[in-house]
């Protein structure tokens, strides 16, 4: 659909020259109709369903999970061997945090989200907001990165969480399928799934200055049946070192 829209947009290319406006960064955008303006950089009302002329995104990246859409199903085992599926958690708010014990933003060191104690504060606040909410960490690091096996990575992950006095399952996703399905990019990277299995929040656990706890905000809103605002924030942290994706299966010829 997206591709079709882009192609259509290309076919319907219209010169911008007739209504291009020179940039003037000093003026705010407002919603006055275009016809009322003689110039400047004011916004012009538009129909969002109008075919876009030529927007192109560099090809490649999949979108992953999207707010308002069903969360990708998963089956993953935790470090202790317990199997978790998203289906079995239906009816509960689920917080998924992509995690690395070696990343200085996630859990590697005193200044990290976990090492600073911020994660513990968020966990306590989430439980206070909704006692039934489930908080899971996911480790999608490939096997053998920096000489560490997935097993060792899992042990180190559990130890980093335990060092903060917490007990949170660490789900292992060494082939990266679940991380890719969600579009997880960094550690940390938070995805919150509501009780119906719909993605409600994607982004950072907290604001850069630590003043806003986006995770608890979202869990509290969901518990109250309110919209999650903000539903997206900019995540930052170490990139997830995924295993190379499996080769696509050889297409099977249709039966004749």
């Amino acid at each position, binding site marked *: 659909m997206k591709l079709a829209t882009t192609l259509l*947009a*290309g076919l319907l*290319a219209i*010169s*911008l*020259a007739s209504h*291009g*406006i*020179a*940039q*003037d*960064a000093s003026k*705010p*955008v407002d*919603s006055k109709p275009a016809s009322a303006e003689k110039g400047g*950089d*004011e*916004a*012009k*009302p*538009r*129909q*969002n369903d109008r075919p*876009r*002329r*030529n*927007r*192109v*995104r*560099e090809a*490649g*990246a999949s979108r992953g999970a999207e*707010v*308002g859409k069903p969360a990708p199903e998963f089956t993953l085992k935790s470090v202790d061997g317990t199997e978790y599926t998203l289906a079995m958690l239906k009816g509960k708010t689920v917080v998924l945090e992509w995690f690395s014990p*070696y*990343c*200085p*933003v996630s859990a590697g*060191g005193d200044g990290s989200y976990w090492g600073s104690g911020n994660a513990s504060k968020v966990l306590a606040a989430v439980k206070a907001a909704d006692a039934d909410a489930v908080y899971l960490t996911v480790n999608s690091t490939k096997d053998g*990165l*920096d000489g560490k096996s997935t097993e060792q990575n899992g042990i180190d992950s559990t130890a980093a969480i335990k060092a903060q006095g917490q007990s949170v399952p660490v789900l292992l996703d060494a082939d990266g399928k679940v991380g*890719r399905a969600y579009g997880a*990019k*960094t550690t940390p990277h938070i995805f919150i799934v*509501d009780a119906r299995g719909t993605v*409600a929040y994607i982004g950072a656990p907290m604001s850069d200055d630590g003043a806003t706890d986006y995770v608890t905000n979202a869990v509290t809103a969901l518990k109250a049946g309110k*919209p*999650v*605002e*903000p*539903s*997206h924030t*900019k*995540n*930052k*942290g*170490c*990139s*997830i*070192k995924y295993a190379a994706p499996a080769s696509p299966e050889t297409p099977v010829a249709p039966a004749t």
Partner: protein
Amino acid sequence: MPSASVPAVAKLAPTLVTAADGSLAIAVDLAMLPHWHIYWSNPGDSGGATKLEAVCPPGWKVGAPRMPRPEVHGSSEDRAFGWEGEVRFLLPIVEHPEPMPATIAVSVKAEWMVCRESCLLGSATLTGSVSTAAVPSPPARAYPEPAHSTMRVRVEEGATHSTLVIEAPKSLVGEGALFVPDDSPGVRFVDGTGPFAATTNETACVWELEFEIDPALVAGAQARVRGLVLAGAKINDRAFEISQLLRVPKVRDAGKAP
């Protein structure tokens, strides 16, 4: 010198420098081991922005850091905007005493995240007496220049999102030009991190980029949609700053919330 345990090292230049546009600046150089990189103000899909802050004596005022145009690293799965090798940051002098003394006591705090496969956080407080006998800064990398007179830029507002439209003359940017979004609190491009390629007509490269504004995340009263148009792929090819002031909606647009 950078080493395996400290893969990025920052250094304060001993003299003020004059940038290509003639402005005066304090220069901070960051050198990295091969294959390691640090990040631009919008790091991309991952990473953390490089930050610099200068403290100068009374009578001196330093503006926001000027970063050279970023390189685009990584795969489509993990785009990083930043630099490898050596990179110079400029802290523009916007006020100084007259006549200028021969030296200025400067303190610059620098913070960065440096990554290869693994990542490390780095920081340094660089202090020193910097000569005001300015020397030209070597133009190894291009620094973004304003796009005011060279491009046509506007924002179109829609019911659920807005669209940033940029029209850049082909003669200026070439057909391979990219738009890289900069850090714009409260602004989220619908198609993700970028970079975004242009389509072209006879005379121009054109971008139409949809974005959403989240009032809950706008810092202060004003929001801007910001980014760079990168002409060419080389580190010394020109880059143009786009910075468009936005009207921030008071209520969330229908259909955005889950």
